């Protein structure tokens, strides 16, 4: 492939994925309000456009034109930096996730993944582990007690659940013998790993919800105790950036669950990209469903569950998988 074509294809892939990601983030707010509305026997947004379809655009414009407020006692530099620190990791981890098979376009064969890195899985974990800084620093820089408490809770929670999250996918790595997400999808050509790793899948799913700080693990922003937690002092677009990060994280985590356990883009009849999106939105729907159904954990319950239940179970799962891999 000539150098120029490679460059054009690369940039196109990045722009398309980034654009679709932004669009999905915008419309996830609509989807969430609609689904939660349905769960609570309401209609949700109905006024702006048919079935409220233009509501996200109206919300976005409103947030852009709102007044920007920086609290007087805030640490100005970190206060302004924190939303960006939350948003960037949320978006860049999608770079290694394969969303389709090789396609032929204009005589070129194109891999439907931005970068097939040989340590793709670790890359996602590395980037995801940085997402916590936006929240912690936002909470600290606001110079507000509620915000600080939210930030501290976030850091403790994300560290605790990151361990089990990492251990839950070790089984998948053992079975596929690779850390490259493209190869992990390839080894699932016959059997999806959800069949071989049901315990790993459950732990991954629970930890994924905790990592994205969503209900029932939304302690960092618990409205009833911490007002709104780490983002209580934020207004206008900076407030929106925290929410965009949350939704983008939701998409990334769902894409990871799809790739690691549901065979990625693999499936019969439909085109690969469609399969990928179907599975992705299945997980996103599950996230919203959980929020509409479950009450929030108490802080001590959260810690006990993470360290005394999830971690040992994840370790036992690795041991069992190791025995099977060794006997094979």
């Amino acid at each position: 492939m000539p150098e120029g074509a490679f460059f054009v294809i690369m940039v196109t892939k990045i722009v398309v994925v980034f654009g679709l990601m932004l669009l999905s983030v915008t419309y996830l707010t609509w989807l969430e309000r609609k689904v939660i509305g349905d769960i609570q026997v309401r209609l949700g947004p109905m006024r702006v456009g048919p079935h409220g379809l233009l509501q996200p655009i109206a919300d976005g414009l409103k947030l852009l034109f709102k007044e920007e407020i920086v609290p007087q006692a805030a640490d100005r530099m970190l206060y302004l930096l924190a939303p960006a620190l939350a948003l960037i990791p949320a978006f860049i981890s999608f770079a290694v996730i394969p969303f389709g098979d090789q396609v032929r376009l204009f005589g070129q064969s194109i891999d439907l993944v931005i970068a097939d890195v040989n340590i793709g899985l670790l890359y996602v974990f590395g980037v995801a582990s940085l997402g916590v800084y936006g929240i912690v620093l936002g909470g600290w820089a606001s110079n507000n007690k509620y915000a600080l408490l939210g930030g501290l809770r976030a850091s403790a929670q994300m560290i605790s659940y990151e361990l089990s999250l990492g251990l839950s996918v070790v089984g998948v790595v053992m079975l596929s013998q690779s850390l490259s997400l493209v190869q992990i999808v390839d080894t699932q050509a016959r059997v999806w790993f959800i069949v071989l790793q049901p315990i790993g899948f459950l732990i991954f799913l629970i930890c994924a919800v905790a990592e994205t700080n969503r209900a029932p693990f939304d302690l960092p922003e618990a409205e009833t105790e911490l007002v709104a937690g780490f983002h209580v002092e934020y207004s206008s677009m900076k407030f929106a950036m925290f929410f965009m990060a949350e939704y983008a994280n939701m998409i990334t985590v769902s894409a990871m669950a799809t790739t690691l356990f549901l065979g990625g883009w693999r499936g019969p009849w439909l085109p690969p990209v469609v399969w990928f999106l179907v599975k992705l939105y299945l997980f996103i729907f599950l996230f919203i469903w959980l929020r509409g159904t479950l009450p929030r954990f108490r802080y001590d319950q959260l810690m006990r569950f993470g360290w005394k239940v999830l971690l040992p179970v994840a370790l036992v799962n690795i041991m069992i998988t190791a025995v099977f891999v060794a006997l094979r």
Partner: protein
Amino acid sequence: MEWLVFVPLAAMALITAVLVIVLRNPVYCALSLIGTFFALSGIYLLLQAQFIAVVQVIVYAGAIMVLFLFVVMLLDLGHELPAWLQRDRSRLLLGIGVIALLFIELAIPIGSRTSHGPQGPYTSELVGAVGNTQLVGRLLFTDFLIPFEITSIILLIAIIGAMVLARR
């Protein structure tokens, strides 16, 4: 070509490392240290040690520094140094002396090029062919098995020690 990446990374590592000890606000010091870890991770990537590069970010930047920040924020250490740590001529001289010693220690091997010894078995071609992660894993569980296991026991002892001290 390599220099285009190495020089900015090295500069970033040095500058952020100096900022860690120069800045007064402990939160900013911790953030500078994260910057140092990032630059080091980039240098590991240049050396084709992708596994170590990512582990550096996951373990140091993603976990240990979060705990550091957690403690710093919880203690609210303030921005001023305590009186006994304020500027002091004798301490300054001692510091300069130690830095000079370290510098000489580093300069001698680099100057005499003793670091350019015979080439080991793990060339970048081999690492590229077998895979970085696979090689690190194999070595850890064969040649370096005993040091590896001893390290884990030491860490376990440290954890138990911390628990015992905290219970007192």
